């Protein structure tokens, strides 16, 4: 324990504090804390309607007010953040895993495989990812998992490109040659020797990916094809709230601010990590 504190103080005295990192950790920490607390306790049932207190403003009883059906907005934001985070994590995981596999193989082997797969990736890249996701949603149907799959596929191309270029960079390094000379099989070289070396580039891209996923999910839900009511994600709630923008601004603002904070948190973390690397 003493060592832990020593480390913190040494960090403070020797290094300049990385503001982005601190701000990012705090904001993201708050959001995640809210989601975790939401798993065990919510001030109100997010689906319980109460017609006697519709569209109330901010009060002690309802710290973000209530919506047009009298549901507590804060409880709904807690729940909605959970859905949104789940979709973002699922999307990015899918994009990273599939993208890494495609990128690693094309980058390592090159040749015909590279040409064919990368042209397919290029074709996917040609569409804006939100449009691509729309196409897939119309194929798979609506719902939380369908949205994860659709957005996941839409996110594959960018990760595949990043991993491919990193693998190309590492492929001819001396330490890879020497691993090859130790008789290490290709698959092990790719996934055990090369992929860990891509982490410096991948971690910031993953964080930016989170942002894009949150935004894309909000966009899809806004169009009404995300997760379905009564359990809504933040984007869906935002689109519901916009009709009451002028009568009850607290409703739309509190949801909007939550999305903004979520994105800001990840963006700061990504920026902070990048700064740490650049020194």
């Amino acid at each position, binding site marked *: 324990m003493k060592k832990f504190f020593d480390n913190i103080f040494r960090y403070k005295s020797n290094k300049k504090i990385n503001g982005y990192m601190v701000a990012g950790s705090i904001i993201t920490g708050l959001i995640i804390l809210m989601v975790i607390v939401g798993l065990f306790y919510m001030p109100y049932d997010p689906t319980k309607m109460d017609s006697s207190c519709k569209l109330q403003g901010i009060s002690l009883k309802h710290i973000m007010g209530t919506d047009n059906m009298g549901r507590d907005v804060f409880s709904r934001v807690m729940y909605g953040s959970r859905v949104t985070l789940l979709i973002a994590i699922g999307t990015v995981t899918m994009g990273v895993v599939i993208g890494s596999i495609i990128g690693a193989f094309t980058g390592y082997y090159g040749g015909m495989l590279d040409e064919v797969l990368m042209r397919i990736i290029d074709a996917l890249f040609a569409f804006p990812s939100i449009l691509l996701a729309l196409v897939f949603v119309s194929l798979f149907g609506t719902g939380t998992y369908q949205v994860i799959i659709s957005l996941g596929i839409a996110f594959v191309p960018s990760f595949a490109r990043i991993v491919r270029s990193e693998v190309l960079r590492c492929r001819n*390094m*001396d*330490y*890879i*040659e*020497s*691993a*090859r*000379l*130790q*008789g*290490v*099989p290709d698959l*092990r070289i790719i996934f055990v*020797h090369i992929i*860990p*070396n891509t*982490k410096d580039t991948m971690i910031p891209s993953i964080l930016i990916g989170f942002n894009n996923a949150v935004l894309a999910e909000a966009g899809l839900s806004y169009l009404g094809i995300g997760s379905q009511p009564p359990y809504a994600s933040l984007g869906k709630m935002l689109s519901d709230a916009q009709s009451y923008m002028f009568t009850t601004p607290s409703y739309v603002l509190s949801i909007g601010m939550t999305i903004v904070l979520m994105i800001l948190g990840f963006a700061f973390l990504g920026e902070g990590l990048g700064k740490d690397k650049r020194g």
Partner: protein
Amino acid sequence: MADIILDVSDLNIEFHDHDKPETVVFDFDLTLEKGEIVGIVGESGSGKSMSALAIAGLLKRHALTKTGRIMFDGHDLLTCDRDTLRSYQGDEIAIIFQEPMTSLNPVKKIGWQVEECLRIHHKDMSKQERKEKAVNMLDSVGIHEPEKVYNMYPHELSGGMRQRVMIAAAMIADPQILIADEPTTALDVTVQEQIVELLRKLNREKQTSIIFISHDLSLVSRLCQRVLVMNKGYVVETGKTEDVFKRPREEYTKRLIAAIPKIDI
């Protein structure tokens, strides 16, 4: 005559990168006996590293053709299938590269990298045995506090230390042949001496045959029993180290020897 473990004959290496094929190694012959240290000397671009890489089997994937034979353990390494080649790589034929700064994977711990060969070729070893062997190996290549270094990352070590780690990683599976491709070029003179001494010690203790590639003639003359002089892809002179250096027959060898810097103050 002792056992011949490696027999390279008529090795030609030809590149096809450009329109016209370009031959970089002509009629390379080499026999290696058990426990012998053979030096290959020559200026940059004379084909010495190319020949060594061909023996180690690294040139398989590149755009080039090779003719000749590299006989090892009853197999021709030039024509055998990939799995056979791979089963020898690391286990029986190991290589150390010139550049210790880039030859270790920056994101993996030293111990992990030293053990890698065992993980590939000796799958039956337990984690504990592997670690024990790796620590012993690190100790025997002259690293102080091997337990500590075992858990370090490459950037925490100096160039000389890294080259020792490379040697430990190459030697851990007790290979029969160690190819050292200019292992001391990137190091300063005192560390060079230590590395050479270490190679000599390993050669003596484990009876490993070493192919030592260098353009440093004085190192070669002290370490190797036999020497091959290469120029422009040809082996111009070969023989016992003493004979070659004391009574060079070829004009090129004479010039190489004359080029050894001497301190005259």
